[in-house]
């Protein structure tokens, strides 16, 4: 049996060697949204138009991309191309596509998000990949509950406090469990914090712990203590674990749920006509009305043996009609500037979903520069993990707000120190 294993290993090795001569590249992606499934028709067309060159799609789980891919890249293994979400953290492995693609077109369409792919080097002009789709944090609101309580729904420009007050009244009047809820995610909290004036990271890439963050944490903790928000997510869970309880919204147990654009599909299929809902424009803080953007990118890696083919393929996907086709198929928010302005038609989505997508897309121009900067920061994940861990400790009275702020800064600086020892 051992022999058979070695044999099959050799055969596989030979197959890989043969494939290299025939110019083949592998693209790793997951199956959701702008992923393998949505790209498949475009890839098929590419393979037909380019005989002798093959692009192979490799569907993997999201966890493989987040946890296994970085370790593989570090050891020189892994696919030639992948759709990734840790844009800043993996920047040192990216293949610079400047000489293979129309750089001016990329700058025009993807200018703001291309910066996210440059990691710790803000001065760089490299084209490190193609941003795929954007995700936008946002609030889902149960309109039926508002109607039953007879309370007007806060409109665009309403603050977080307005929402908290309105939803508290609604919850009381309709006997709903909780007024508001938010995913346990540093990314979601960053939306809240930046609208309260937190900077999180400065121009030089150093963590910032300021009064804005203090106000945000204080308010957030207070809402957990007075029952505005349930303790199940930020209270009960510890560490850096990501957690959501969107079922609370689906079951009408909460009036206002702060999540993001990726649950639209679920809303459509599961809520159906049980109640009326809508996506609301970003609630405002004292500083701005911003939410966090997010999203993935299609990137090539330096270790590839076929950099020209990688460049050619990514350029092909980025062509307006191909890109638009994939966006429409995946029912996601485009990252390309012209499509954000002009809008996209989603033939497969319901009217309500189209409306919600439009609301999400409208938030993009309002996003604060701090939100963009934070999203492209190499140590964003270190900061987000520190935020979730420490805020949960404050809610459980293990830390004071002051101590938590100090810890957050310390956690990020330790991560930066460890990563940068000996230069990078």
């Amino acid at each position, binding site marked *: 049996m051992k022999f058979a294993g070695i044999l099959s290993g050799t055969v596989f090795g030979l197959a890989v060697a043969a494939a290299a001569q025939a110019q083949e590249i592998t693209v790793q992606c997951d199956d959701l949204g702008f992923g393998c499934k949505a790209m498949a028709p475009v890839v098929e067309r590419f393979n037909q138009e380019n005989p002798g060159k093959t692009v192979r799609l490799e569907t993997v789980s999201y966890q493989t991309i987040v946890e296994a891919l970085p370790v593989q890249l570090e050891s020189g293994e892994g696919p030639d191309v992948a759709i990734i979400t840790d844009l800043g953290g993996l920047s040192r492995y990216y293949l610079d596509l400047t000489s293979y693609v129309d750089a001016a077109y990329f700058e025009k369409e993807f200018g703001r998000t291309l910066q996210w792919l440059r990691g710790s080097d803000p001065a760089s002009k490299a084209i490190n990949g193609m941003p795929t789709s954007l995700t936008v944090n946002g609030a889902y609101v149960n309109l039926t509950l508002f109607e039953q309580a007879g309370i007007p729904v806060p409109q665009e420009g309403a603050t977080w406090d307005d929402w908290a007050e309105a939803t508290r009244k609604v919850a009381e009047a309709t006997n709903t469990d909780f007024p508001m809820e938010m995913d346990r995610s540093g990314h979601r909290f960053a939306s809240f914090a930046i609208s309260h004036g937190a900077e999180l990271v400065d121009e030089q890439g150093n963590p910032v712990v300021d009064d804005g963050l203090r106000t945000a944490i204080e308010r957030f903790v207070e809402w957990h203590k007075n029952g505005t928000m349930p303790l199940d997510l930020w209270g009960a869970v510890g560490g850096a674990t990501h957690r959501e309880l969107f079922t609370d919204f689906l079951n009408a147990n909460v009036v206002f749920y702060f999540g993001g654009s990726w649950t639209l599909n679920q809303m459509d299929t599961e809520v159906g006509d049980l109640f009326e809902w809508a996506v609301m424009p970003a609630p405002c803080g004292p500083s701005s009305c911003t939410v966090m953007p997010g999203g993935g990118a299609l990137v090539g890696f330096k270790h590839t043996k076929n950099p020209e083919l990688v460049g050619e393929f990514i350029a092909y996907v980025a062509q307006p009609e191909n890109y638009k086709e994939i966006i429409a198929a995946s029912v996601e928010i485009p990252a390309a500037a012209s499509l954000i302005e002009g809008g996209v038609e989603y033939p497969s989505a319901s009217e309500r979903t189209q409306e919600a997508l439009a609301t999400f897309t409208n938030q993009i121009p309002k996003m604060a520069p701090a939100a963009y900067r934070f999203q492209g920061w190499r140590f964003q994940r270190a900061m987000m993990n520190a935020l979730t861990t420490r805020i949960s*400790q404050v809610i459980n009275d293990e830390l004071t707000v002051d101590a938590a702020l100090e810890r957050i800064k310390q956690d990020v600086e330790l991560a930066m120190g460890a990563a940068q020892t000996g230069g990078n």
Partner: protein
Amino acid sequence: MSAATRLTGALATLAALPARVVEPLMHGLQKLLGIKRMPWVFLIPNLTAVLLFSLLPVFINIFYSVTGSDRLFPLDRPYVGAANYETLLDCRDYLDPSTCSRDLFWRALGNTLLFVPVQVAAMIGIALLTAICLNRDIRGRGFFRGIFFFPVMLSPVVVALTWQWILQRNGALNGLLTAIGLEPINWLVLPDAAFFWSVFVTVWAHMGFFTIILLAGLQSIPRDVYEAAKMDAASPWRVFTRITLPMLKPTLLVVFILCVIRSVQTFDELYVLTGGGPGSATILIVQFIYETGFAIQPRNFGLAAAASLLLGMVLLIFTLVQLRVARGRSYG
């Protein structure tokens, strides 16, 4: 039926094949090396694998612990001396975790020190009681055994997701409580309740394994010993303390050591169930190591390795003591 016979025949031939090749080889080796060196021949395959995939990683970890950066290859990593250990051990007051530089490491250590004895006691107590029940002359023994063993077969992630689903605010347990007219309790929000359920769920998931081992131990106690006790009209409790327990001691020792070691290593179930929360009430040491070295970008291999070596030292001391006890017994 005939297909099954043929399959069995084919399997038998297949099984005989290595024997036909291996046996002459081993005969030859025995002639060549002499009987004195044969134990090493038996040991070498296992030892090689242990050296390569268990001890070598530990040495790499030692190397990681004195080097910095997030690079994977040891030689790419700059030497930082004891910096990682200093970061971990940097405390103003060792009795108060919040004065430490890495407060979560100390909280995790404290939680582990509380979790292990409680969980081991509960695990062995319940497993022993179950094994005794299953060893009795009752109907449907196979059925009961299967049921108690079933959770062992589930993957840790599935165990955790199932129980999270049961224990959450809108979960089955609260559904049950409401149905019988009680107030629902938000279990995982209360630190003490979360700790209790951490112990409960890990015992639920693993007790079947220890029950089986204890059951095997109980069954190896000769029946005539019990018959003799019955003649003397000894009470059940007396039979248990004077016969069952002493004769079960070697098995109990095995179970105890395995149980402690696995308890210290508890990770997957709790990571998914509570993530170490509420706050840091159920964070255990392996979760700290995992989050530091693997889950949180940028990965701090050095700090994680240092923490794992400190943990290793504690475990090593414990096991050496245990081994001493075990050795005294098996030769005595």
